[in-house]
């Protein structure tokens, strides 16, 4: 693979992957600023700053960057998650300078006009309200809050409504100044170019930005959970949902790979976040035990790949007329089976085969390639991604059983019910 990994003098990490499959380039600027860096009173600040980063600078007044990218046929967006905020542009390859210009400007020149902050406050609240319309959002928010009582991962990216109502312009701006610095950022570029030329362009656009202050360390450590936690959300509708969350280690931890295989066997192989392909999970153990047996309409699992210990979540939609208690019992039976006997060789082989195909799907476009360059660097390093298949291939049935015994204990889980009023 044609990959260059370098660091500019100001601390900006730059990852460049050259590929000539299509005349397209994707540029991603990543900041270590996410839910992980927030605390009560300013929950949702990373996401709000992301919105503000589209509200303009002296060089690129509001709307002008969006239009310049669109004029070239490009696409752009931003997103905020547990450990990061990121922005990207995917463009015809010869327009790469435009993306670098916009992202270098975004790193230090956003103005945060007070009127723009107020106008965006209602947009952010509207985004939160749109999510609140979904029963699964309401349930997920309660389950995460119960699972974490110390670590910031327990609150939603969108933040609490009271914080969105009260946060000030200056608070947002100071957060931006503190976290949007070269030494807290990663620039990931993939596509159709010459690596040496792109390295020079990265230096030209980003090299003169001041290093900036050190970001405050995150000291929060979630204490061990000492017994099952349970939450109930009641709301409109006629459908009940179950959401169970287990604490798991951070993505760098060796057990993360055993848990990835465990999830493939239990809930079905998961795809890779940005585009690519997905597989159905109709041969997974939970589908067979819950859906085939008419306890649930659907079921699935997801692992958080994060800097600090995350969650493994299982979600099921109850079969019409089925009590959530019955769905739970069927679920616990399958988990006990994983804990008491090893997964079979064919199950292990299937999980590893699926991982190989999903990995290929996840690297098809420049956008996906640049995403993985930056994302893996956030929670580990790009080697995590390139070694991913080897790590999964090394997982044994014993590893999976041991992971089930350690992490899927009842004492380590938070169980949430969404009970519809019917």
């Amino acid at each position, binding site marked *: 693979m044609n990959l260059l990994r370098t660091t500019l003098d100001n601390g900006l990490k730059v990852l460049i992957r050259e590929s000539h*499959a*299509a*005349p*397209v*380039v994707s540029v991603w600027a990543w900041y270590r600023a996410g839910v992980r860096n927030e605390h009560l009173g300013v929950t949702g600040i990373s996401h709000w700053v992301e919105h503000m980063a589209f509200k303009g600078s002296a060089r690129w007044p*509001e*709307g002008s960057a*969006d*239009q310049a*990218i*669109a*004029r070239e*046929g*490009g*696409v752009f967006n931003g997103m905020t998650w547990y450990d990061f905020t990121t922005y990207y542009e995917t463009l015809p*390859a*010869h327009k*790469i300078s435009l993306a670098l210009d916009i992202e270098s400007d975004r790193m230090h020149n956003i103005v945060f006009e007070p009127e723009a902050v107020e*106008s*965006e406050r209602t*947009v*952010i609240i*509207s985004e939160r*309200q*749109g999510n*609140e*319309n*979904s029963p699964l959002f309401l349930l997920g928010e309660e389950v995460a809050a119960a699972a974490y009582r110390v670590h910031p991962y327990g609150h939603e990216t969108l933040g609490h409504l009271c914080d969105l109502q009260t946060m000030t312009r200056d608070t947002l701006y100071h957060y931006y100044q503190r976290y949007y610095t070269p030494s807290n950022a990663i620039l990931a570029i993939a596509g*159709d*170019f*010459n690596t040496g*030329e792109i390295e020079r*362009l990265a230096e030209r656009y980003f090299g003169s930005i001041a290093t900036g202050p050190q970001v405050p360390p995150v000291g929060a450590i979630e204490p061990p959970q000492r017994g099952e936690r349970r939450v109930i959300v009641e709301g*409109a*509708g*006629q*459908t009940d949902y179950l959401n169970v969350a287990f604490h798991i280690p951070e993505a760098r931890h060796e057990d993360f790979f055993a848990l990835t295989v465990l999830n493939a066997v239990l809930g079905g192989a998961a795809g890779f976040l940005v585009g690519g*392909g997905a*597989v*159905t999970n*109709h041969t997974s153990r939970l589908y067979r035990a819950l*859906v085939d047996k*008419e306890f649930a*309409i*659907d079921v699935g699992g997801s692992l958080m790949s994060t800097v600090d210990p995350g969650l493994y979540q299982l979600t099921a*939609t109850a*079969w*019409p007329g089925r009590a959530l208690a019955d769905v739970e019992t069927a679920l616990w039976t399958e988990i006990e089976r994983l804990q008491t006997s090893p997964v079979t060789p064919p199950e292990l082989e*299937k999980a590893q*085969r*699926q*991982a190989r*195909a999903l990995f*290929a799907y996840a*690297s*098809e*476009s*420049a956008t996906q390639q640049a995403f993985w360059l930056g994302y893996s660097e956030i929670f580990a390093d790009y080697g995590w991604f390139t070694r991913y298949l080897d790590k999964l291939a090394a997982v044994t049935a014993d590893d999976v059983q041991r992971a089930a015994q350690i992490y899927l204990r009842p004492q380590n889980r938070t169980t949430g019910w969404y009970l*519809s*009023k019917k």
Partner: protein
Amino acid sequence: MYKHKTTLSLPGPDDVLRQTLPNGLTLLVRENFASPTVVVSGYVNAGAADVPRDKIGLAGFTTDVMERGTHTRSFAQLYEEVESIAASFGLESGIHTTSFGAKGLAEHLPLLLDILNDVLRHPAFEKEQVEKARAEILTDIQERENDTQRMAALMFRELAYPEAHPLHWSQTGYNATISRLTRDDLAQFHAQFFAPQDAVIVVVGAVKAAVAAQAITDTFGAWQANRPPYPVLPPVPKLTERREKRLTIDDKTQSDLILGWPGPARLDPDFVPCFVANTVLGVFGMYGRLGKIIREANGLAYYVYSHIEGGKAPGPWRVIAGVNPANVDKTVTLIIQELHRIRDKRVSKDELNDSQSFLTGSLPLQLETNEGVAHALLNIERYNLGLDYLQRYTEMITAVTAPQVQDVAQRWLDPDHYALAVAEPSTS
């Protein structure tokens, strides 16, 4: 000045293999060895338009069960084969057609074709699977009733389209119709309407075109069946009044609204100028003019955009927004204001150029993946646009003039006669 290396090769007559088999199935293949994967995409001409009024939802129900087992592959066997190689496949029913598709590693193309052929031609319609699919659909309908976006979409159809037209109705169906459909209804619908005539299959990926074409021919060539003549849909009249429907749903915090009209069909001569007008109105940059006034200037909505569907039907042209309940009326006022603006004042040369260069410049991105190319080829075939369509696309888009944009806006975007559907929280 930086120079990139790769030139965009637009799929066209020179590198797309196209053949029509004696049974009426047309195949198209384009090679792409950039990644070791392959995408299969296609359609047969069976859809909601073939379904009588008392069986609404039958087409979708049928395809759901077709995915659940064949005469030689049980549900478990089917998914064991597909999932064990991390491939995927699926069917989806539309108004006129049922789409099918599959994705996997290129080495598995013969198996993917075999599975698609099997589910399209030999579905078992086992009673147990019929009941499981029914439960899934009924749950989905329950979830829809608690979903503001989906309910707004459903009400919009009812307001904008006459009852005699399939676009008036939910394609998923309704509790009453899904509950009473029988296994025989499904099997009969399949036997009557699934046929290779005028069907299309596209393969894009890391496989030699001649090899893929032969594999398709070997797999689907023996399919012999005929369907009845295509239904003639009633005309969709323009709206001559303002139709509004509001629905409250408990425990919600945001309102979703859809304002729009039946739009031009894809082959209507107005479609291309309308497509450009729609880009100006609610797409370009951050949701076009609508985004600028409603999201950026007034902070009223997290999302607001416009969308023109085209289609054979003809599909709707809609403005879609999610707003705080207190801002619904203000948002509607601003939407109407923007409709007046695009009708009353000719779009400037610069603004028109912006939208045109967005539409033409985004071709390389749309055609970067196998899925993107397959989608484009399928559309070309669906509307008989000609294999050189993508090569003519830029010329066609840039030929649209400001007077044309204004003309179609005046004829299609009626600010006095429209359908408005709002699903919102109860105020109590």
